[in-house]
């Protein structure tokens, strides 16, 4: 990344990076450092003093059944969102790649949920499925399903997964379409001449060649489900009923701002940081080099 020709100024480059470094230091590094520090301390109940407790907070958090529950909720939620959003988007992208007429119109009509805020996506699904006024809730009940997401955890989970996956389909669709268009047509033609039908061609040629895109999207979708879906959970279920939709990020927020448990919230933040670092490393190590977009 070194250029041969550079400008000789001594002071100017520091002035140019200063704004970003200042914001980064004040709002990223200092808080991150504070999170790590607070995770090693515990406040007394009145907030007058705090004492060093080593890794006690981590021990407390990791042995807390509520935290283990929220970890399980997050894994189930993230995997469901990723699988639903990826399968639906792949199906639509393969179809959009096949059609000749109307490709642009289909693309335009499929991408706009990307612009809908997660919290609003959640509200839209709430309108549709709310037991009091949702048309689809009425239809489900007419089908004999005991639909009540306010009382039943699995149904609340299905609702937030639906809203989160719905919003992510457009993103995945665009990347799958780009991936499909990058596959050389000659490969597919050769297989067709050898007598392979569309289904066979898809599974033996297209799908393996798409795997870098799929893997990349899997990581991105997991990160999305972990962090960007806070708005959906907060607006739709508030973590409930019980704690059946309380994800890790929601729990950090809830313990820190609602229950005011600084040490536990900070310890959870640090655990989340470790998860993000792991995901980022995976992304760079395995994805960066292998994904190419034409």
């Amino acid at each position, binding site marked *: *990344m070194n*250029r041969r*020709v*550079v*400008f000789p100024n001594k002071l100017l*480059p*520091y002035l*140019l990076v200063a704004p*970003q*470094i200042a*914001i980064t230091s004040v709002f*990223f590094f200092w*808080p*991150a450092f*504070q*999170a790590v520090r607070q995770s090693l301390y515990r406040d007394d109940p009145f907030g007058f003093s705090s004492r060093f407790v080593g890794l006690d907070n981590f021990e407390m958090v990791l042995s807390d059944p509520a935290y283990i529950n929220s970890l399980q909720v997050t894994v189930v939620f993230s995997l469901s969102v990723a699988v639903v959003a990826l399968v639906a988007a792949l199906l*639509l992208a393969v*179809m959009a790649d*096949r*059609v*000749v007429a109307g490709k642009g119109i*289909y693309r335009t009509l*499929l*991408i*706009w949920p*990307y*612009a*809908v*805020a997660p*919290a*609003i996506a959640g*509200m*839209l699904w709430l*309108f*549709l499925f709310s037991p009091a*006024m*949702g*048309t689809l*809730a*009425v239809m489900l009940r007419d089908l004999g399903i005991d639909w009540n997401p306010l009382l039943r955890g699995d149904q609340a989970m299905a609702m937030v997964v639906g809203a989160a996956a719905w919003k992510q389909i*457009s*993103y995945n669709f*665009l990347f799958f379409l*780009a991936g499909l268009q990058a596959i050389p047509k000659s490969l597919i*033609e050769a297989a*067709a001449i050898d007598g392979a039908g569309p289904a066979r061609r898809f599974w033996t040629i297209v799908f393996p060649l798409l795997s870098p895109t799929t893997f990349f999207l899997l990581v*991105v979708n997991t990160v999305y489900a972990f*962090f960007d879906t806070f*708005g959906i959970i*907060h*607006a739709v279920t508030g973590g409930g009923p019980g704690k059946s939709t309380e994800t890790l990020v929601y729990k*950090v*927020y809830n313990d*820190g701002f609602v229950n005011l448990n*600084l040490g536990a919230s900070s310890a959870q*933040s640090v655990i*989340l*940081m470790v998860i993000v670092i792991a995901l*980022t490393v995976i992304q760079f190590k395995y994805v960066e080099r292998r*994904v190419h977009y034409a």
Partner: protein
Amino acid sequence: MIERRPLGALLAHFILIVGIVIVAFPIYYTFVASTLTTQQIMAPPMPLVPGGHFIENYGGAFAGVATIGGVGVDRLLLNTLVVALAIACGKIVISILSAFAIVFFSFPGRMFFFWMIFITLMLPVEVRILPTYQVIVDLGLIDTYTGLTLPLMASATATFLFRQFFLTIPDELVEAARIDGAGPMRFFRDILLPLSYTNIAALFVILFIYGWTQYLWPLLITNDNNMNTIIIGLRKMISFVDADTQWNLIMAITILAMLPPIAVVVFMQRWFVKGLVETEK
């Protein structure tokens, strides 16, 4: 087309249309609800064709019939617009300057700064909410536009995008500029900036949507209803539901809250797709 399969093509169109119906249905449903009366909405199943109360509901939303703690929808939309524009423009300015410094100068600490920016990728706001909130409290930035936008302005992805692009600019161009007597800022303004316009447009679309759809941060930073964004305002409206809740107005406001970013995506689609693909690389 490898082979002619009219049935296959028909099936593809059919699946795409079903997909679009599913993707569009929640938004269409809300739009229909925004043209009905509360009584019609509250008596499911609701009709699925728009009713005749469009002007009444949207007019009512703006005329201040529905307010959140005495704050009108126009104020909420304005707040959101300010936040989205400030985040988008701020991020672009800050990132393009630091990328310029890192690529076109050689100075002690260059790699250190580069890694410092790079590492922020691993610190999303969600993992450091409490301490960042404390910083904002200490600086007295609660309920200000600065507090709502400044912490979200540092962006590793935007800096990287500009850095990648700057690295493709040939050395000859820089040399030519220097021979002609252009200083670094002149080079930046007259050569680099015009070359970056498409990248800036692509980033702007992505960042505008990012800013508009923020949720956790405005939720923490605003106590005063006057400073709420439209999304936080809506969430407050639907969480204090009682018998008098005017669902028709809530539906209209939901549509208004979705409209600007959707318009940006649809009308700036080319830059949107470019921005999406490039910022993730």
